[in-house]
């Protein structure tokens, strides 16, 4: 026999359950977005605003945003895209990282989705970093570039000028240590290896040249020539020299990128090589504008024609080939590229827009560092390629771990390049 007293709560539970089912709109759709996590409050605020606007414009649609740190994002993305629970839209770098997904059918072809959407806002040529064999598999949303940020007060108080060449840089490493042995010229957080490979990317672009470097990275050179340019070993040797000269703080290979920003912000290093996403972090860590920006010093013994590039690339969004909501996803990307959102991303998140139409109205609100970047970027010949996003993942793994060994002096630059070359040949033979 049923207990009368239990019927009330049971009926209530059932009623609430039914009400919940009825309350969900029949056309409820969920759009899942994957993005890299950020400690920059402006970035997160911007995402909240964009999602709220999209949901308001698309009743019944819920945008679920999931964020990951860079390593976890890279490790999880490909697997997630092969599953049924992966994201509909996801961030990606306009490089080999996005191309590999396109080649393997994991990213949707968005070439025909742009009409009436982003092609009204940006030049079709900007789709190139996300294109494979003439078809677009992603849409750029902003550019990033890396600069040397330096502590303005330290340099002014000591009557120093930030180095413009690597010879000056090596001399500055000694000068800084003479002023204060506890302070390093620059802070490098290479525990997760991508910071180190960014240094090597820039140095390699100077020594090898961008075009030759790209040919190797795309595995287009002949087997005999691939990764044999002596500039590769020179770039690695420069990293070792910088370590030997005390340019970096102690323990670069156990310091995370976050820690390295803290080291710079706390004055334990006079500079840091960081992206255009960094000023917000410096400000939130207490520096609040007490820094200036400079290009990466030109490599003194590199060919003259190789100077004038800046490390950077275009970032954007791709749509999963498995997504059931591709049109909706395209609408979301289109919103990101709208004049107002691009302007807001510039102001709040420091993202250099690909659509500059709305920028004029907000130029006074843009962070001074980002204003500097916007004015400075046209001065360069172009972006120097970034090894860890433009090169096959297996080769990157050998390269970036080996850079740790080179910095510590356990492996010579020649030994590392022999390993990189062997891995590149193996990858090429399997394609």
């Amino acid at each position, binding site marked *: 026999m049923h207990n009368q007293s239990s019927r009330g709560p049971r009926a209530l539970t059932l009623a609430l359950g039914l009400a919940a089912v009825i309350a969900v709109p029949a056309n409820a759709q969920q759009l899942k977005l994957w993005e890299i996590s950020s400690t920059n409050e402006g970035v997160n605020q911007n995402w909240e605003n964009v999602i709220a606007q999209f949901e308001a414009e698309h009743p019944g649609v819920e945008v679920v945003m999931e964020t990951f740190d860079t*390593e976890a994002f*890279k*490790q*999880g993305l*490909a*697997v997630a895209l*092969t599953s049924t629970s992966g994201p509909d839209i996801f961030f990606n770098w306009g490089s080999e990282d996005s191309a*590999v*997904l396109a*080649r*393997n059918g*994991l990213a949707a072809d968005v070439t025909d989705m742009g009409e009436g959407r982003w092609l009204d806002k940006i030049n079709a040529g900007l789709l190139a970093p996300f294109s494979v064999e003439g078809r677009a598999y992603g849409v750029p949303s902003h550019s990033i570039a890396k600069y040397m940020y330096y502590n303005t007060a330290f340099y002014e108080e000591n009557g120093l000028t930030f180095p413009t060449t690597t010879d000056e840089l090596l001399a500055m490493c000694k000068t800084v240590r003479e002023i204060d042995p506890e302070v*390093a010229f620059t802070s490098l957080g290479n*525990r*997760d*290896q991508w910071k180190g490979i960014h240094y090597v990317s820039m140095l390699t672009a100077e020594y090898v040249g961008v075009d030759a470097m790209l040919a190797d990275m795309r595995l287009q050179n002949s087997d005999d020539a691939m990764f044999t340019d002596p500039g590769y070993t020179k770039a690695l040797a420069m990293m070792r020299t910088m370590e030997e000269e005390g340019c970096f*703080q*102690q*323990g*670069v*290979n*156990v*310091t*995370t990128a976050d*820690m390295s920003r*803290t*080291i710079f912000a*706390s004055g*334990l290093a006079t500079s840091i090589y960081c992206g255009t996403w960094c000023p917000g972090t410096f400000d939130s860590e207490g520096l609040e504008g007490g820094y200036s920006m400079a290009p990466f010093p030109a490599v003194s013994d590199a060919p003259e024609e190789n100077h004038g590039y800046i490390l950077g690339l275009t970032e954007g969004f791709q749509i999963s080939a498995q997504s059931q909501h591709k049109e909706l996803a395209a609408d979301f990307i289109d919103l990101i590229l709208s004049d107002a959102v691009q302007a807001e991303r510039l102001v709040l998140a420091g993202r250099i827009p690909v659509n500059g139409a709305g920028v004029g109205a907000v130029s006074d609100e843009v962070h001074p560092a980002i204003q500097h970047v916007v004015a400075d970027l046209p001065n360069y010949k172009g972006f120097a390629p970034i090894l860890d996003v433009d090169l096959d*993942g*297996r080769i990157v*793994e050998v390269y970036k*771990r*080996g850079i*740790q*060994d080179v910095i*510590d002096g*356990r*492996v010579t630059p020649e030994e590392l390049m022999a390993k990189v070359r062997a891995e590149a040949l193996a990858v090429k033979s399997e394609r």
Partner: protein
Amino acid sequence: MAQPPTHHRRDTISALTLLAPAMILFGAFILLPLMQTFAWSLYRYEVFGGVKEFVGLDNFAKLAGDEVFGIALINNLKFAVLSVVLQVGMGLVLAALLDRGVRRFKVVYRTIIFAPILVSTAAVGLLWSLILNPSIGPVDDWLGLIGLSAPRNGLLGEPAFAIYGVIFVGAWQYTGFMMVILLAGMQNVPEETYEAARMDGCKGLRAFFHITLPTIRNVIITCCLLTVIGAFKVFDLVYVLTNGGPGNATEVLASYIFRNAFEFGQIGYANALSVVFLAIAFVFGLIQFRMIRR
């Protein structure tokens, strides 16, 4: 007298009904993935492109010449041996002190020593990576107080020492857990046994070696088994503390399997690594299981 056949059948049905949920779960989450792991270890199968080609034992042959696999295997063995020494050894000493040495504030000491196990491994890793960082951590200052200096790149930054740094942090986290298990075993040793031994002149350290240790032998073996299994499973601590670096100096099997599967997309090779990993863990488990039964 034999039971009627219908009775017997009913018992069988009841037994199977009761076992079914566990068997279904075991089959779905252990047996099937295990079989899939064995099967995929024989294929060249990549996340990117999904290349699926039967290659027989090629993945295992490749493994034999894989330098990083060798480093990872040796690191796991170091982890297992040193963790047993540190976690079980120190746990044993601390348990003995709390059982028969310390008279006051036992609960306070026990709680303090046990506390690190309650903190997530990610938080422990983050905490120790800050403490051991040579630029911003306090270790250099601590060592300076006793006239020593840390390696220039810190304990975790020197390939020769890095794995020992990770093992030390693991021991810091788990020694308290071992202590609690061993202490529970020691508290089950009848007081009468100690009294009888005392009358024969056996007390203090002699009582510990001749009464306590032999009596809790199986508890110690269980602790060793748990520690060795934990040492072979270790992943999170390495991931947070060193990410396998510098170079590949702190790579362990679990992190190498993870990297092959999710960074390089080499699912077939990662499965071959997993099969070897399973075989090693199985052998260790078998040895210790036999020791318990002896």
